[in-house]
Every structure is written in structure tokens, then in C-alpha cells.
């Protein structure tokens, strides 16, 4: 066998010790021109609440569907003074949250936290924290499909027209079908909302339990869809209304249980199968809230 000098030795691999700050990267990974482009899209999105602004989404070092849109928005908003919190399904310790948090630790050396009140920037997948958001916080959603009309109208040229002319009749057809099939509105997540009495918007796959938290929130809410290359936003103190029928009003459903860890009765719960007999446990999906309540 021929010998080469290119044999990779195991000891050449760097051992990843808690991911130290890597100064080879530009601050928060993206180059400054890209951040500028994304910030422009964000500003436009804030000016037209609920309107989807196209942007030149970049290839990120993670697969589509893992929050590439949210990560780009976060990277563009991040400053050295920020404290970052990342949650995935309400939890700070799940794969998506941990990997994105490590990504920003490594590329920007900023402070991170698990405590909602202490964070200045929060990136989320599928939840809004139970602790109310406050002024000067930026809240970034990861969005898989930004177009709420996509399931009704596959043509993008047509959905753009429907948005621009406020032709939203078809949106209620979906809710109508829900009621006629199930007796109530079955849609439980990504429940469509009307923002600032104008644009119908997909709130990303948060449970409809969280929809009321978007309304009149003091925080800035930004939505990034990486694969679909869209950014949209809700500026602070903006009206966000969930669609419904007069005789079937919007109902922010949650499981009829209290949290088995902290006892909270008014938080969103995860249902967990705990043994082979099919016994269930209900616990808060917001780990930060649950821990704080338990320790009180």
C-alpha cells in the first residue's frame, strides 16, 4: 500500500471543550453586508406589520428546518451587549436550542441566559414564554412556512395578489371545514392571525394557546423563514387578532391538567408517556417558568 502524507491523525481533531469563542468568525457569523441587508428587510417588515418581506437568505451551517431564518434574524440584531436566550418547544435544553446557543457563543461570545426576564434577545421555536415579554426585548420566531394562504392557493403570484387586495375569504373556508368536520376549530398550532387589521399572518407553529400573547406585546416580534426567504414582523403594541367565526369564537386551548412538576394550572403543557402501560404525565413546556415556580 502506498503511503501518503495526508493521513488524518486522530489527534489533529480539536476536542470541543464547551465551544470557546472562535475569533476567526465575523461577529455573529454573518458578514456585515449581509446583516445590513437583513436589517433593512427587518425595518421594512416592522413598518408594514404582518407583510412578508423577501430577503436574500444565506446558506447557514445548519440544515433548513432547523431555524436558519431565525438564526439570520438573530445574528443581524445581536450586539455585544445582548443577553441571548434560545428556546425550542419552550425548553432551553433541547437539541435545537442547545446547538443554536452554542453557535452564537462560538461566533459572538455574548452572554446567554435561560431566564426570560434577563434576556434582551430571545429566539424561539414553537413557543412564546409564559413570563410576559417586556419592553426592549426582541423576540425572534423560526418560521417553516410563512405563507398562511399556501395550503389554499399554491401559486405565489396569486397569494401576493390576495394579500395586496385583502382577499381573505378563502382563509375562513379552512376554519369552516374544521367546524363542519369536528364541531370546533381543530387547528391547534400555526393558527392564522390578522395583524394590525390588515395582513393575515402565520404566527409560525406556536400553539394557539400562545396567540393572545402576540397581541399588544411590548416586545418587538420578528419572524424569519430561511428556506422561504421571508421576514415579517409585529412592532410593539400592535393588534394581533386570531381569526374566528362570530358563533365559534377563538379558543386558546390547553390540556385540562396542572403541571406535574410545578402545579401551574394556566400554562401550556407537554403530554409525556411515562411507562409502557401508557400512563401520562403533564409538565410545563416552558422549562424556565417551571423551574422558577418549583423553586419558589
Amino acid at each position, binding site marked *: 500500500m502506498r503511503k501518503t502524507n495526508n493521513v488524518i491523525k486522530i489527534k489533529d481533531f480539536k476536542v470541543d471543550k464547551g465551544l470557546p469563542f472562535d475569533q476567526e468568525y465575523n461577529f455573529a457569523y454573518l458578514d456585515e453586508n449581509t446583516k445590513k441587508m437583513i436589517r433593512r428587510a427587518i425595518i421594512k417588515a416592522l413598518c408594514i406589520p404582518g407583510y412578508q418581506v423577501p430577503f436574500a437568505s444565506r446558506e447557514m451551517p445548519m440544515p433548513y428546518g432547523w431555524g436558519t431564518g431565525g438564526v439570520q434574524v438573530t445574528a443581524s440584531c445581536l450586539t455585544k451587549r445582548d443577553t441571548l436566550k434560545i428556546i425550542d418547544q419552550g425548553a432551553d435544553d433541547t437539541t435545537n436550542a442547545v446547538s443554536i446557543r452554542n453557535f452564537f457563543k462560538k461566533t459572538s461570545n455574548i452572554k446567554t441566559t435561560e431566564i426570560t426576564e434577563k434576556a434582551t434577545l430571545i429566539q424561539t421555536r414553537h413557543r412564546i414564554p409564559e413570563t410576559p415579554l417586556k419592553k426592549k426585548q426582541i423576540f425572534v420566531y423560526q418560521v417553516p412556512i410563512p405563507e398562511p394562504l399556501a395550503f389554499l392557493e399554491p401559486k405565489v403570484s396569486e397569494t401576493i395578489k390576495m394579500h*395586496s*387586495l385583502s*382577499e*381573505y*375569504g*378563502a382563509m*375562513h*373556508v379552512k376554519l*369552516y*371545514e374544521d*367546524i*363542519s*368536520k369536528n364541531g370546533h376549530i381543530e387547528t391547534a398550532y400555526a393558527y392564522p392571525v390578522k395583524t394590525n387589521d390588515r395582513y393575515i399572518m402565520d404566527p409560525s407553529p406556536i400553539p394557539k394557546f400562545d396567540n393572545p400573547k402576540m397581541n399588544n406585546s411590548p416586545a418587538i416580534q420578528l419572524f424569519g423563514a430561511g428556506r422561504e426567504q421571508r421576514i415579517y414582523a409585529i412592532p410593539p403594541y400592535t393588534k394581533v387578532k386570531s381569526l374566528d*367565526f*362570530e*358563533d*365559534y369564537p377563538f379558543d386558546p386551548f390547553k390540556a385540562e391538567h396542572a403541571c406535574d412538576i410545578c402545579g401551574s394550572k394556566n400554562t401550556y403543557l407537554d403530554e409525556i408517556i411515562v411507562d409502557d402501560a401508557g400512563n401520562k404525565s403533564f409538565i410545563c413546556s416552558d422549562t424556565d417558568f417551571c423551574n422558577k415556580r418549583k423553586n419558589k
Partner: protein
Amino acid sequence: MIIPLLKVTNLSKSYDNIVGCKNISMSLYPGEVLGIVGESGSGKTTLINCLSGNLEPDRGKIIFNTNNKETDFLNISESEKRKFIRTDLAFVHQNPRDGLRLNVSAGGNIGEKLMSVGYRHYGNIRSLATKWMNKVEIDKSRIDDLPITFSGGMLQRLQIAKNLITSPNVIFMDEPTGGLDVSVQARVLDLIRSLVNELNLTVIIVSHDLAVIRLLADKMIVMKNGTVIESGLSDQVLEDPQQEYTQLLVSSVLHV
């Protein structure tokens, strides 16, 4: 004096060098049913598509006069135009699958137009949909069934219900009985005729079937090569055709 509901002046539309329709002028009065006949390629569909807003004509004027308001159809903004189409016009396609959402239940299909003009009460939408299912003779127990489970004739009746529910001012029908077998055709025609009488509808109906025109239309126009060659009361035109082509058309109807 009665003001025409629709007045068309010198309407022309061509596709590159091919003439779709040329210098069409006509008017339609409230409660009238106008038949458009002609052979394939004579410009019937081009004309009806221009009038209903599906196509942009090259030249001419289309004036609607609905709800005491004049609408210059070709000179309004796109949003006004789409709103007008939504509230004042209806289009029954030859193939009901073009006019229905096949993955949405019958009730949802009928209710969609109501929701698009602002109905937000499920119970009301549902009861209106049920009422219209009755009107078009579809059993109301089928309200939650998908259109794909319906027969051809039922689909066409469903499409008619979907279009009429918001009481549009002008209804366009493009060969509404085209793809149906004869007995089903008769039933759909019978339904259209009774709805026209009952609700005093204003209809423009395109067909190459003279029997359909004789049964439904008060007035008719005959088209050939994109132009109107003969027009008048349908009985008159069919009994005493003046143009050679119309004579040929009338004489070529099969009598069984």
C-alpha cells in the same frame, strides 16, 4: 327608459395575429337571458372571458350598470375590478371542477363566496348553504361530503349554487351542460330555467347547442370568425334566420 345592465361597444381581442373577437357591440337588460352561439373558434369564449374579467380586451368599452352605479369595467383599478367580479358577477364553468375546490366540502364550496364578502357567522353560512343545496336539488345530508364523491350533474348543480348564493347581477355560463349526458343535461337546464324565472336572473349563456339557447335565452347573438353576424330575439333568429351561416346552423340540428 330602462338602462342596460351591460353595454359593450366595439370590443376587440386578438391573440397575436389571430382574431379572437372583433368590434362586438351589444347590450343586456336586467332580467334578460342572452345566448351566444357559434361554431368552435368563433370567439364565443373569448367574448365571455373579456366580459367576465378573465381576459383583457385590446380595444372597446364595457360598462356595467349595477345597483344604480355605473362601472367602466376596463378602466377601474385591479382591486376595484376584483371586488366587482366578486360581488356583482358570477361565472359557471363548463367543467365544474374548474369552478369548485375539490378538497373542500360541498358546504364549504357554497359558503366560500359568502365568506369572501364578509360573512363571519358559521350558523348563518351553514343555513344559507343548506337552503341553496335544496334549491339546486342536492340532498342536504351531502353538505359535508367532498365534491369528488358527487356525480357530474350534481357537481354542475353545486357549482351553480356556489355562484348564485351572493345574488350576483350578471351570471356568465360557458356551456353549462357541455360535459353531461342528455338526461342530466335536461335536469340541469330545467333547474337553470326555473332559477332564472324565480330569481329574475340576468344571464349570458354560451352554447353551441341551439336547443339550450331556444329553451333558455330571450335574445341571442350568432358569432362567426370573431364577429356578430346576426342578433335578435331567439325565437325570431331561430325561426327565420337571415344569414346563410345561421340558416346552416339551424338546419343542421338533428331531429330524432
